[in-house]
């Protein structure tokens, strides 16, 4: 199958209703095997960096919240970390706890969103429905605390803009208890399911060496055994005072990435409970700060990994240069290591395993080679992924979706 005539290019993307951002992948395949992969990123370069350079330090966090529909807290807090690094200031404890609470709520709903999408890609729509159902109360909690399901508009340089309504804390605790129980059930069902283990183990392996070479971050790196987490390495907000642990897995496959994310959900709930218990009194910001000339680097552990902002000030009230590096920017190129040689049916879930603010395959077009071989139709990639799951399930003599009775604990 190595002759050139059997090579085809399969285009994935760039637009699909499930996509948060448009991104295009070109897979070069020989028969079933992927031999080359390339990504195109130029669809929505919004020029936000330049836009932020024309806004004051007070306005920039609001602009940066719009970078990502999921990680809204991430970029605004990361920018604040960068400017606070430049200034050399420490924010008040209450502000640190508020940043931690909104950041962890964001991680919770982002990880649940990924678990749902991952289930969808391999034909486990029960997981999809469950995970997104459990995500709703987390978004509700975010809305109760900040007034919006995604964009809080809270972070500002030197603290946060508004206080959290402490009278809602009992309700938040109740939501956390509920979500923890449900996610425990989901985790047990996912980790015990033999079809899922057969489907995801050994798929899309990213070795630790490749992970370091591509500089991948977050759950993608931790699932390849790299012990890295900005929350512990360079504690910002209140993480230094809290009791939690970094979840790592050695295998580097899609299953390991799922395990890391599922277990991190429980760490997030643990962090949130501690924050609610210890919520300190006092000021919530340092007031208006003058930013002198200089430069600062801010880092933040987003749900998808380390976010980096570089800020350079020339003494005016606007940054002279703001560089934003989102975690997916380094995670996406690692597909070149994890997808090569993989069968087509595994590509969807391998691409999705990095949680790359992108998803699916419906709008794929195919370039047919000169011999005029049949078209490889668009939705077939997703279909191939699901068919492989069904075949595995049949071979194992099981139903091709989660065994709901057993997951309830009522079956068997």
């Amino acid at each position: 199958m190595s002759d050139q005539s059997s090579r085809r290019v399969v285009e994935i993307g760039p637009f699909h209703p499930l996509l948060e951002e448009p991104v295009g992948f070109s897979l070069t395949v020989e028969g079933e095997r992927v031999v080359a992969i390339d990504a195109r990123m130029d669809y929505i370069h919004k020029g936000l960096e330049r836009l932020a350079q024309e806004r004051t330090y007070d306005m920039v966090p609001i602009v940066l919240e719009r970078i990502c529909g999921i990680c809204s807290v991430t970029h605004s807090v990361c920018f604040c970390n960068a400017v606070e690094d430049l200034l050399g200031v420490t924010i008040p404890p209450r502000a640190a706890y508020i940043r931690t609470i909104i950041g962890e709520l964001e991680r919770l709903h982002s990880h649940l969103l990924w678990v749902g999408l991952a289930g969808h890609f391999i034909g486990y729509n029960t997981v999809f429905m469950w995970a997104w159902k459990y995500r709703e109360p987390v978004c509700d909690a975010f809305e109760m605390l900040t007034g919006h399901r995604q964009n809080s508009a809270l972070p500002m340089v030197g603290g946060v803009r508004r206080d959290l309504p402490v009278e809602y804390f009992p309700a938040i605790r109740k939501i956390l208890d509920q979500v923890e129980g449900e996610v425990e059930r989901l985790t047990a069902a996912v980790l015990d399911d033999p079809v899922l283990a057969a489907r995801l183990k050994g798929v899309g392996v990213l070795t630790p060496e490749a992970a370091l070479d591509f500089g991948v971050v977050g759950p993608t790196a931790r699932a390849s055994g790299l012990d890295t987490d900005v929350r512990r390495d360079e504690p910002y907000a209140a993480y230094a005072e809290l009791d939690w642990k970094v979840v790592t897995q050695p295998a580097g496959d899609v299953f390991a990435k799922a395990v890391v994310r599922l277990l991190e959900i429980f760490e997030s709930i643990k962090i949130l409970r501690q924050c609610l218990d210890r919520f300190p009194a006092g000021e919530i910001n340092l007031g208006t700060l003058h930013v002198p000339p200089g430069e600062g680097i801010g880092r933040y552990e987003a749900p998808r990994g380390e976010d980096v902002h570089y800020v350079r000030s020339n003494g005016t009230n606007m940054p002279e240069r703001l560089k934003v590096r989102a975690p997916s920017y380094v995670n996406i190129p690692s597909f070149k290591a994890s997808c090569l040689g993989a069968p087509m049916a595994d590509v969807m879930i391998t691409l999705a395993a990095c949680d790359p603010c992108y998803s699916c395959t419906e709008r794929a077009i195919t370039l047919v080679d000169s011999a005029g071989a049949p078209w490889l139709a668009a939705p077939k990639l997703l279909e191939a992924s699901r068919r492989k799951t069904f075949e595995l399930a049949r071979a194992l003599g099981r139903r091709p979706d989660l065994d709901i009775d057993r997951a309830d604990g009522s079956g068997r």
Partner: protein
Amino acid sequence: MDAAAVATRMEEAFGDRVSTVVRSPKRLVASCAPADLPEVARWLRAALPGSRLATSTGIDLRDGVGLFHHVAINGSPLVITLKVLLPKPEPHAPTLARETRAAEWIEREIHDLLGVTFDGHPDARRLVKAESMAETFPLRRDFDPAEFKERIGERPEF
């Protein structure tokens, strides 16, 4: 290892070819000539286990285009910024894509936005910029959005 310790080791290894400024225990700035960039990058990778290229920043300065490589280390708060100044009007720098694949995309992006040519880059295609911007570099100081809009936005060609 904190910033001062890394600065000492860098000075031992490179002498006056690298100058360092310790901004804080977790922030180190090192400057070198563009030609020394790959060598310094290789040294950092070997000397600091778990180090990776977090990202790079390009910035249009008065004397040239500044190229700042930010190196982070897994498990450490230290971030090392490796700075070089590339003279205008045609800034070019040696690529780091052969030292670490993490440099591939960010160098393509800096080429798109600032027009820096990376010598020896294995795949120097356009990454983030719209096709219509061609040889326009939006993060250069002489870029005029109004002029650009008038040139291509107001009169779309069909």
